[in-house]
């Protein structure tokens, strides 16, 4: 069965400058949401603009519902693709009210027989009823972003592209909107590509996540695998949720580290015994134990609401993160000793 949407071997360029090269990924089913994650300026927006038809390609192809939208020879104009892009910056028509802006979006596909999202529904979803009569210059950046999102949603496109859709939205609204957005996209089966630099947003919204680094799509997989089974050191560094420490493989199920001692678990990729590797330690891999005799010095403690992340300094000067539930009775201060439970077992061992 062919994919609903597919990007095949495309170099994404702006003004002849390649931003991301040789990219291939696909969305299997209508209604799927995928996220593209990467640092600022890496070319994520260029990918969306190209898919929308605002930039052209010289190599490969982009197809939607078995129709080629862009290739070296074919380029369907943006107005003739049923693709909607919600820009990161304010792109509302400045001389129309927010309401009129959104209603202009509703005019597109008004004859479509698909299940329709109602105007009021989208207004409530994005919490913008109070700004409908205002002009774009009279509202905040976050409100403009939500109004723009409303206009894109109401067009009910075959493919919705969201460029950092909630980057200007207040934290207090953000989670609520994320939940509602996901719900409505799923109920209307609107296939969506979200570009973001917020990994939590990407992991929540996307059924798949693509990591773009150093001009390449490094990994494209479901969020759980991206997080737990990163396929390169670059992805580990970008996600910044763990550290790499030196270790030696001692058996098909164990390895040895100078500070932590023996670590057992399941390798996600086999290494020959005796190999010197870099072992990924994520905050949730090690467990705290006050009674343990394996103790390290606390150099930092971050309170994250539901948990603490302690940073421990080993005798070889590596800084290891350890997650502890925030209700844990003994809170350790900086410079105190912090115990690690032994024996150490990591369910999936990631080494490079």
């Amino acid at each position: 069965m062919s994919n609903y949407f597919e990007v095949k071997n495309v170099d994404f360029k702006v003004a002849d400058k390649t931003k991301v090269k040789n990219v291939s990924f696909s969305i299997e089913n209508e209604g799927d949401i995928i996220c593209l994650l990467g640092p600022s300026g890496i070319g994520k927006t260029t990918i969306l603009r190209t898919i929308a038809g605002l930039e052209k390609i010289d190599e490969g192809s982009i197809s939607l519902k078995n129709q080629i939208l862009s290739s070296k020879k074919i380029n369907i104009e943006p107005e003739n693709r049923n693709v909607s892009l919600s820009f990161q910056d304010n792109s509302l028509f400045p001389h129309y009210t927010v309401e009129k802006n959104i209603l202009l979006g509703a005019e597109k596909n008004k004859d479509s027989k698909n299940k329709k999202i109602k105007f009021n529904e989208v207004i409530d979803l994005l919490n913008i009823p109070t700004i409908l009569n205002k002009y774009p210059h009279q509202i905040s950046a976050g409100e403009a972003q939500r109004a723009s999102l409303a206009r894109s949603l109401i067009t009910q496109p075959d493919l919705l592209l969201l460029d950092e859709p909630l980057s200007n939205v207040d934290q207090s609204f953000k989670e609520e909107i994320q939940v509602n957005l996901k719900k409505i996209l799923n109920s209307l089966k609107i296939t969506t590509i979200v570009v973001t630099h917020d990994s939590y947003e990407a992991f929540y919204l996307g059924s798949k996540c693509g990591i773009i680094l150093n001009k390449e799509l490094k990994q494209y997989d479901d969020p759980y695998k991206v997080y737990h089974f990163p396929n390169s050191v670059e992805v580990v560094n970008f996600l910044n949720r763990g550290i790499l420490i030196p270790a030696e493989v001692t058996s098909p199920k164990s390895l040895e580290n100078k500070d932590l001692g023996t670590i057992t678990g399941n390798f996600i990729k086999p290494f020959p015994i005796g190999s010197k590797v870099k072992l990924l330690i994520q905050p949730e891999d090690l467990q705290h134990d006050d009674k343990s005799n394996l103790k390290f010095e606390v150099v930092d403690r971050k309170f994250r609401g539901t948990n603490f992340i302690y940073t421990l300094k080993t005798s070889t000067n590596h800084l290891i993160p350890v997650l502890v539930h925030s209700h844990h009775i003994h809170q350790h201060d900086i410079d105190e000793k912090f115990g690690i439970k032994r024996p150490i077992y990591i369910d999936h061992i990631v080494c490079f």
Partner: protein
Amino acid sequence: MKINFWFLSSIIISIIVVLPILVVFSSFFQDTSNYFEILKETFFFEYVFNSLTLLIGVLFFTFILGVGAAYIVSFYEFPGSNFFKWSLILSFAVPPYIYAYSLFAFFENYGTAYTILKNLFGEGNYNQLIPKFDGMFGLILSISFSLYAYVYILARSSFLYQSQNLIELGKNLGFSKIKSFYSVILPAARPAIVAGLSLVAMETLAEFGAVDFFSVNTLTTGIYNAWIAFDDLAFANRISFFLLLFIFILFLTENLSRKKAKYHLETRGGFKIKQKIKLNGVKSFLAFAFCFILFFLSFLFPLSQMLYWTIKFPDNLFDLKLTELLLNTLYLVFLSSFVLLFFSLISNYGNRVSKNKILNILSTLSISGYAIPGVILAIAFITLIAWFDENMFQVLGLLSIKKIFIGSVLGLVIVYCIRFYSLAFNGIKSGYEKMNIAVDESAYLLGYSKFKTFSYIHLPYLRNSLLFVLILISLEIVRELPITLILRPFNFETFATTAYISASEDLLEAAAVPSLFLIVIASFFILLTSKYILRENNE
């Protein structure tokens, strides 16, 4: 590169506008008559010296008057400050040549000043006591009072848009008002002031009517004389080339300064209306006196002089074919405005959608028409038409095209369009610049074609800019003299040419009526635009 309707139209429009400008430059290498040799030996350095003296004098006065007035009305509140805010731009309604007529007529022997003194104190030998403002000094004053508003408008808008934080920072550092002015306010407004002064400089070098009236030999009158007296187009163009080199330096300065001037215009949320300082006592009187004297000298004085003559010599009012002059002027205004707006809209949109480098360069060149004096443009246009006529139409055995373009409304409108193209193009461009390109892209993604985006999204958005440009062009055309003088059809007069002809025949009283009407019509246009020129918020 995709060639579409918008791209092609923009290229064609830009080429039409650029052609006469290129003629001026290319003619530098053509042969000239003996006049060049004669002039080199005699008056050439006088032309250059006079042009420079005039330029320095005008820049000095316009800086003092423009920046001074802008500072006072932007930062202080005093009786009449709201009135002066807009009334000080009315001086635009008085072209330098009309100011020159007033100045000369008031102070001449047995002129208006003499009459006033005689009526007040009886007969006497007052002519010796009355100072004479003719020659270079009269010319400098005439141009300065007419053009200082360029500096005033740009400096004022810069003062208004200066970040409140910047001024508060000065206070926080313990600066006195004078130190704040020199260390914070003036440097921040420098690009705007330089832009204003560059415009003044370009207009001064292009000025023809007043220079001719005071018989000061400058490069501009040199060009006109080379053409009129010696019938030497090539040489006229050669002097133009020297003048243009100088003007282009000013043009570049102005453009660069304008770009820099943008840096302190803050976007949404960054603009705070400054609390003006309320003046009392002597300070309040001095501020009022400065603004009132400036308003009086720049606007009321020439207006009253023209009104006085019109009332004193009522026959001139009845002799003048008022309806005909009004219709001729309006005819030129409407025709030129329509063509200019149409061309500029297409060209701007073409630039916006095609993002083509060649088009961009052509557009930049085409807006330089404003920097080229009307005399030069008119002569370059005649040169171009003559070349086409001789080398193409006559060779092919076709009828001469000279009559179609030279001495016709068509030719006049074309040259107006070249001269004022930058006003229309930049006016619309500045409207476009406020519109993020993502707005266009959003429209495409909503299924709008380029044409539908243009007509449904852009045109309604640009309506204020279009209205502003329309009024600005009308104002310029009503005041315009040299192009109309050189290219107008036989027996086709405007208020400006009628005033000039009367004045050049030493019939200043007769020049008063058309001048008065010109001032009134121009004032009307200025009052219509003042809302845009002087807006104090970024709505």
